């Protein structure tokens, strides 16, 4: 398809020098000793005052991890990671017990302010201008859980959510306060033995968000988590667990940034979603980890396992992601369509520039009857980056009436990058109807010419084309995120036209 020159320009400009979240917050922190051993796992568990069953769960994962090998099938190259050269736990040193937002280290608050994350409940996300005459009440509220290195530092709007019966808290607290729910669902979608990085996460995860929406409840506001890696040599391993009980609905946003550092930092998260009968979960990510500089030095290694389980009938899980950051992205948000008539969706924009490597996609596993899925993936590669879509659509014997539509479009900006598409389509049921289409092209000269002839500058023309190219996905984002994402795409591509 004809992509917009604007997109092209924007992608080119992912010059790392323009990474605006690259600052470091000087703050004292409390770290586990470097390296990974059973002691590290015990240390983390003890720090979190976890019950014995949780420690056992972690240790089991750790022992299994020792027997596993790092997967090598993705189209990403990186030097061998020394897992003993990392800090697995880092927490801002508390001045005293924190009981309200005012007592949080002002440095951290400042960090989030710089990032534009509203920890104060009155604050609203920027970017959405209220129409004249419209009162501020028209703005939507968003509850935020902020995770700084290894721990959650603040969760907002807790009380209001509590009234609706929604549980939204750091997972470390949930383990203590709602052990039954955690025991029942933790590891039920991504088992501890799932893959190398998920197993590592199971052993050493330090925090993350926990959401439970009770039956029939429509979560009254968007929930959001903001992840920030601050410390040097720190791996961040967060774990998110979201459960939408029967008939519930929740929309969840996730954002990430990290300071500019010359060494690579590791991020290995696990996200598990469970949707019971008639429930719906919408999960949106804007991933903007530090991508490394223009020479390919530094940046985050992002090895993430995200999976949703449409466990109940008529349930729905929708993933939307805008991926612009990270030196390496290895991420396949998936849906297990177990319930009859369940639906999975995956909308993705992956932009790579500089020396970034993206290997991302999704898996739609059709198990129940009349399950449907939809995959829209837009990859934009610029600079010397490699951008791969890797996906799986499969229908098992009993998945009568399974239906999938997949569209993967790639746009290349410049002749030194690569765009690749690796879809797997497996049908074991004759009534399954799968359609897959993929295209790779550059921005059409004709389209550009048309725009420029009508008075647009080269940059504007490219921007127009790129926005058209990614429009299908942007539309899926909650409004506040869509505005941010659009800006982010512009920044990412700046300077890529030339």
């Amino acid at each position, binding site marked *: 398809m004809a992509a917009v020159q604007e997109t092209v320009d924007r992608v080119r400009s992912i010059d790392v020098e323009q990474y605006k979240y690259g600052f470091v917050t000087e703050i004292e922190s409390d770290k586990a000793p470097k390296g990974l051993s059973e002691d590290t796992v015990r240390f983390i568990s003890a720090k979190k005052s976890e019950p014995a069953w949780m420690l056992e769960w972690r240790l089991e994962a750790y022992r299994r991890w020792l027997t596993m090998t790092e997967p090598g099938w993705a189209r990403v190259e990186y030097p061998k990671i020394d897992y003993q050269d990392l800090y697995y736990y880092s927490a801002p040193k508390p001045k005293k017990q924190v009981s309200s937002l005012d007592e949080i280290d002002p440095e951290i608050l400042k960090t989030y302010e710089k990032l534009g994350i509203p920890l104060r409940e009155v604050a609203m996300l920027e970017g959405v201008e209220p129409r004249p005459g419209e009162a501020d009440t028209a703005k939507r509220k968003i509850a935020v859980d902020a995770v700084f290195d290894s721990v959650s530092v603040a969760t907002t709007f807790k009380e209001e959510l509590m009234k609706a019966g929604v549980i939204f808290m750091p997972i470390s607290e949930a383990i203590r306060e709602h052990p039954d729910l955690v025991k029942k669902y933790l590891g039920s979608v991504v088992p501890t033995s799932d893959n190398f990085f998920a197993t590592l996460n199971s052993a050493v995860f330090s925090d993350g968000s926990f959401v439970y929406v009770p039956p029939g409840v429509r979560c009254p506001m968007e929930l959001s988590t903001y992840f920030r890696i601050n410390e040097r040599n720190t791996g961040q391993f967060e774990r998110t667990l979201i459960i939408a009980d029967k008939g519930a609905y929740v929309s969840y946003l996730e954002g990430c940034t990290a300071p500019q550092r010359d060494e690579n930092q590791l991020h290995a998260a696990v996200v598990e979603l469970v949707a019971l009968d008639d429930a719906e979960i919408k999960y949106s990510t804007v991933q903007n980890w530090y991508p490394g500089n223009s020479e390919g030095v530094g940046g985050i290694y992002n090895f993430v396992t995200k999976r949703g389980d449409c466990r109940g009938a008529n349930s729905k899980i929708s993933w939307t992601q805008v991926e612009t950051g990270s030196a390496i992205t290895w991420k396949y948000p998936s849906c297990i369509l177990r319930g009859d008539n369940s639906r999975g969706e995956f909308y993705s924009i992956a932009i790579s520039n500089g020396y970034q490597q993206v290997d991302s996609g999704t898996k739609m596993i059709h198990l129940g009857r009349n399950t449907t899925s939809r995959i829209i993936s837009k990859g934009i590669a610029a600079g010397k980056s490699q951008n791969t879509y890797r996906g799986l659509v499969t229908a098992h014997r009993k998945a009568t009436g399974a239906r999938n539509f997949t569209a993967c479009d790639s746009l*290349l900006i410049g002749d030194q990058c690569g765009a690749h598409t690796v879809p797997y389509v*497996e049908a074991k049921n004759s009534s399954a109807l799968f359609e897959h289409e993929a295209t790779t092209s550059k921005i059409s000269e004709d389209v550009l010419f048309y725009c420029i002839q009508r008075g647009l500058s080269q940059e504007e023309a490219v921007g127009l084309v790129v926005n058209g190219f990614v429009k299908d996905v942007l539309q899926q984002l909650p409004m506040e995120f869509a505005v941010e994402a659009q800006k982010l795409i512009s920044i990412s591509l700046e300077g890529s036209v030339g």
Partner: protein
Amino acid sequence: MGAAIRPARTIAELGLADIYATSRQSLPGGTDIAAVRAAAFNHFALAGLPHSRVEAWKYTDLRRLMRDAKPLAAPPDIKAKARVHDAGALFATLGFRRLVIVNGAFAADLSDLAGLETGLTIRSMAEALALDEPLLSQGLGPMVPADEPALALNTALAGDGVVITVLPGATIERPIHLVFVNTGAAAAAMVTRSLVVVGGGARATFVETHEGPDHQDYQVNTVLQLVVGDAAEVDHFKITREGGAAVHVATLLANIGARAKFNELGFTAGGAVVRNQLFVLIAGKGTEANLRGLSLLAGRQHADTTLAVDHAAAGSQSRETFKAVVDDEARSVFQGKISVRPQAQQTDAKMTTRVLLLSDNAEADGKPELEIFADDVQCGHGATTGTLDDQLKFYLMARGIPEKEAEALLIQAFAGEVVETIGHEGIRDALMDATLGWLGQRG
């Protein structure tokens, strides 16, 4: 990380090692060829038979599907030769030049070698090897990894085949029909290697048929190296109708020059396990390649078409169309990869794969892949899997056509989209007849 774990050798792997050890002395070729063979077998022995953890063989696990290794077939005797007169019957009436390979050995006495056109030479591979010509590695593009297991095994064990050359500028009007036949006296393995070199500006058509008896358990590993010169026009058809118990692994290595026209069509309707792998290197600019495939599968057949098209030069066009009709408990596999190298700007490549599933126990696996390193390209692929459209069926049935016939009509139309693209009328009609025959058996 650590070293990859090497699972215990299977019976078939041990058998292959035995066969290589005992037959290496008697395989044709001097010391140079023997060294090439030894290196190839080492490559094979290191990795063993490909299995589902080997990405290129993900859906065709030879470790599981190939239970044992059959001994190399003995040269055909008079009795065996007498049994092959009706081989290649599909094209018997079309007057093609027949070259017969019986039980893995080229049979000059059964072949039509009279009145060769100017510029055409035909020899047996065994003869060529005996002269120690470095043919086994000739024409291999850089895209084929030396450790590709099926190819390595073939290099190690190939006994015979044909060597055909067409001089530059020659036009060979009469299609050349390579009749590969197994007479089935014993459970055996046929390992053949053929080389076809078509010079610049030359034109020729090649047809391969592979067949054998239904009740003999045999194995085939066949390789065709095809070199297409600049501005040459080559059509190649491969018809696989092996017996119902056969394991058939075929590799096509095609190296296509500039401004050439290359038409390829694979038709698969027989064999228990069939793997057709095609490595096509588009080495010159301005070339048109048209690759098509049709598989008609029933029973417990397993047929895999794996295609890698490597655009290494600018301004070329390729079209890949693959279709399969899968009934009963059969399984169709299609892996197609289009690679575009950085220098191959202005490449135009489109791949389509469509599978029709006729039974709830049938399975279709597809992996259409794009690997693009150049920006000014038009590349795309489309893949669909589904069953017969109920509405179309209803339309026909509402007009008084019985259900089975309505289905047959729709399947014929589906398959026809591949068969009808064939330019040669005789071949087109023969393959349409074969398709109708398959539908007839479906009952």
